[in-house]
């Protein structure tokens, strides 16, 4: 414990710094396009339809919505995580990434995939929304491009695994540093989970869109999509957790409450994230109700590591606040360093996530889902989770990460603080409106100013979507302004990277079993086989693959 290993110098990690910058820049471009589309949607829902004026660029509500979904939740998240987690891992292991050519090859492959997918996406030849349910058929380049992005994420996993192996050789007896452990678990989980979408692309959608297969199967494709589509949420959330567990406690002036409990939670996420995808298909015909209940139960089970996380993080924040002189049951909360934008943004993200988590539990209850499935409630929910818990955390991280990478101080702390609070406030209004409208029966993914059947009671809440959305958009503008000015105009030297938090109950208390990868990967595989095997097998056996593709936009 007392060995103080030297951090690798910036020169040794020049490569890692550069590639992380590259990933972040692509992520920023994606997010800025995404939030611009978000504003249009918010306004449209309230009756301010700007699409006719944007016709050559954004052809329709649904063209814009496809870009919104793809850019925000597929591109921004994936690029951010592929930059951030390897960066954190090399800092934690104090060693560079295993292969320089693999590092850059991965980035260029991911970018090439993105560009390939973006051509039909921007050209309105893939307006199938980010879930691309067949038999609605996009241009083949959309499917091939997204597949390349997925393959590139596997190469990130490979690079992390090689880096870990090299480190392990030099440190045979040491417990894996927490941040590296968590990053590895996150990418391992994702790699297992993404097999579903890869299979959907390679065996169904790509040959079918190229005309090599006449038909496809709408249900089989949905099963494969949601095999990945739920755990992808954990891919984003776990990346945020890495920061909450390993950096935020120290940013808050304290220690992580329990390192072993954090590891156990992550192993549970590794094991439980995937065999639960049917909870997105409770209302699908063609899947036995009993299997839906199995997935429902496992979804409740994955709530357990989430609650462990909640407890561990709150206890850590309290630890920091008390160290700063906080008192009382609740008052300590105000003693936290709210003036630090990186910290404040992430704590606000956590608070929002508490609501999101409760909503998620509601959605996971199979029969309650009958009320909210595919209503605006779901959009309300996913903006609390992906749109805030994840995105605002990532923004908070960039408030230190961008200064460290570009070696310039953050342009404006004040602007950053205002940005974080505006995001939280805008989201509160925005998602309150969507949740309420969902309970009133308003469908999601629907052009509300053109709808032919609007119920009168919806009208009161629709403007709130635009108001909340506009606040969110202003917040995003402040964010990007601050980022750009930091990169190009800031003159002050950068502060150091926040250090990893120590733990009250440290890694030496963690059972060594937790570092035994083969066991956990096997458990994960067995659970997946159990939860998906029978349903997938019977689908594969009976599918006539007879849904021809069509372009319906």
């Amino acid at each position, binding site marked *: 414990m007392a060995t103080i290993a030297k951090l690798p110098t910036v020169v040794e990690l020049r490569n890692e710094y550069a590639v992380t910058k590259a990933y972040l820049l692509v992520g920023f471009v994606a997010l800025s396009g995404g939030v611009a589309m978000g504003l249009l949607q918010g306004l449209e829902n309230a009756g301010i339809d700007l699409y006719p004026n944007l016709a050559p660029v954004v052809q*329709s509500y*649904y063209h814009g919505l496809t870009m919104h979904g793809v850019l925000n939740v597929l591109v921004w998240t994936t690029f951010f995580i592929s930059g951030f987690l390897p960066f954190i891992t090399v800092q934690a292991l104090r060693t560079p990434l295993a292969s320089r050519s693999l590092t850059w090859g991965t980035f260029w492959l991911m970018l090439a995939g993105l560009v390939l997918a973006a051509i039909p996406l921007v050209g309105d030849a893939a307006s199938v929304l980010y879930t691309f*349910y067949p*038999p*609605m058929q996009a241009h083949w380049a959309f499917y091939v491009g997204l597949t390349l992005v997925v393959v590139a994420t596997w190469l990130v996993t490979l690079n992390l695994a090689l880096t870990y192996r090299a480190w392990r050789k030099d440190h045979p007896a040491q417990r894996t540093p927490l941040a590296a452990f968590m990053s590895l678990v996150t990418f391992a989980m994702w790699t297992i989970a993404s097999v579903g979408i890869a299979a959907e692309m390679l065996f169904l959608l790509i040959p079918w869109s190229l005309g090599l297969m006449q038909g496809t199967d*709408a*249900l089989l494709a949905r099963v494969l999509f949601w095999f990945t589509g739920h755990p992808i949420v954990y891919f984003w959330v776990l990346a945020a957790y890495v920061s909450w567990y390993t950096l935020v406690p120290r940013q808050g002036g304290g220690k992580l*409450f329990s390192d072993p*409990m954090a590891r156990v939670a992550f192993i549970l996420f590794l094991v439980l994230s995937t065999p639960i995808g049917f909870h997105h298909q*409770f*209302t*699908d*015909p*063609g*899947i*036995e*109700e009993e299997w*839906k*209940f199995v997935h*429902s*139960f496992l979804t*409740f*089970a994955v*709530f*357990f590591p989430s*609650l*462990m996380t909640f*407890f561990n993080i709150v*206890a850590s924040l309290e630890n920091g606040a008390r160290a700063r002189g906080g008192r009382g049951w609740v008052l300590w909360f105000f003693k936290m360093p709210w003036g630090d934008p990186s910290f404040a943004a992430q704590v606000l993200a956590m608070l929002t996530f508490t609501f999101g988590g409760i909503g998620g*539990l509601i959605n*996971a*209850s*199979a*029969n309650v*889902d*009958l009320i909210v*499935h*595919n*209503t605006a409630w779901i959009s309300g929910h996913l903006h609390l989770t992906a749109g805030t818990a994840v995105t605002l955390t990532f923004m908070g991280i960039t408030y230190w990460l961008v200064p460290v990478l570009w070696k310039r101080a953050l342009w404006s702390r004040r602007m950053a603080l205002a940005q974080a609070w505006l995001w939280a406030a805008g989201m509160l209004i925005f998602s309150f409106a969507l949740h309420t409208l969902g309970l*009133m*029966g308003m*469908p*999601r*993914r*629907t*052009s*509300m100013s*053109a*709808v*032919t*059947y609007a*119920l009168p009671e919806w009208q009161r809440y629709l403007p709130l979507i635009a108001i909340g959305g506009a606040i969110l958009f202003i917040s995003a503008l402040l964010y990007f302004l601050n980022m750009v000015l930091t990169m190009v105009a800031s003159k002050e030297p950068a502060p150091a990277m926040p250090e990893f938090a120590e733990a*009250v*109950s440290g890694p030496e*208390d963690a059972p060594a079993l937790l570092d035994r990868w083969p066991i956990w990967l096997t458990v994960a595989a067995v659970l997946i086989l159990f939860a998906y095997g029978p349903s997938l097998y019977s689908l594969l056996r009976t599918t*006539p693959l*007879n*849904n021809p593709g069509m372009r*319906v*936009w």
Partner: protein
Amino acid sequence: MKRKTTYYYELFWIIPSLLLPIGMLATLLFTSYGADVHLPGAEGRVDPAKLDSTPPFDNPGVVQVGPSRYEVRMVGEIWSFNPSEIHLPAGSEVTFVATSRDVVHGLFIPRTNVNVMVLPGQIARATARFDKPGTYLFICHEYCGAGHHTMAGQIIVDAADNGDRGGK
């Protein structure tokens, strides 16, 4: 903080956290098997290219199947439902049997338990009771192309039912 205290704090949190999923499962099983709220299940396949010659979809519409019990055979296609207007007497229990001729659609009747995906190749089934007279909306709640926001229909539940259509 002493290690022992940490340990107790952990347990104090872990045990209720474990009970929560188990309690939720119990509730789920209770509402499903006790209160009879069901999810769509596996009802079989149908060839979307041959709907016009496959019963019951060759003849979409409302059919009475018992006292106060009806079946609505429904086909979704871009961008309409067939039938798109349904008349029923109050107090009916109605099973919707639906499929799609083309892309993925949805069938959603707010304030009822009818919320089901309508997939090409699959038969979807969902049941609801209509006790209160009035007009109910049914909506396609999955994006199905450029005209998605126009895809909806109406169920008109009539109050008094003078002709005996099998009501109680």
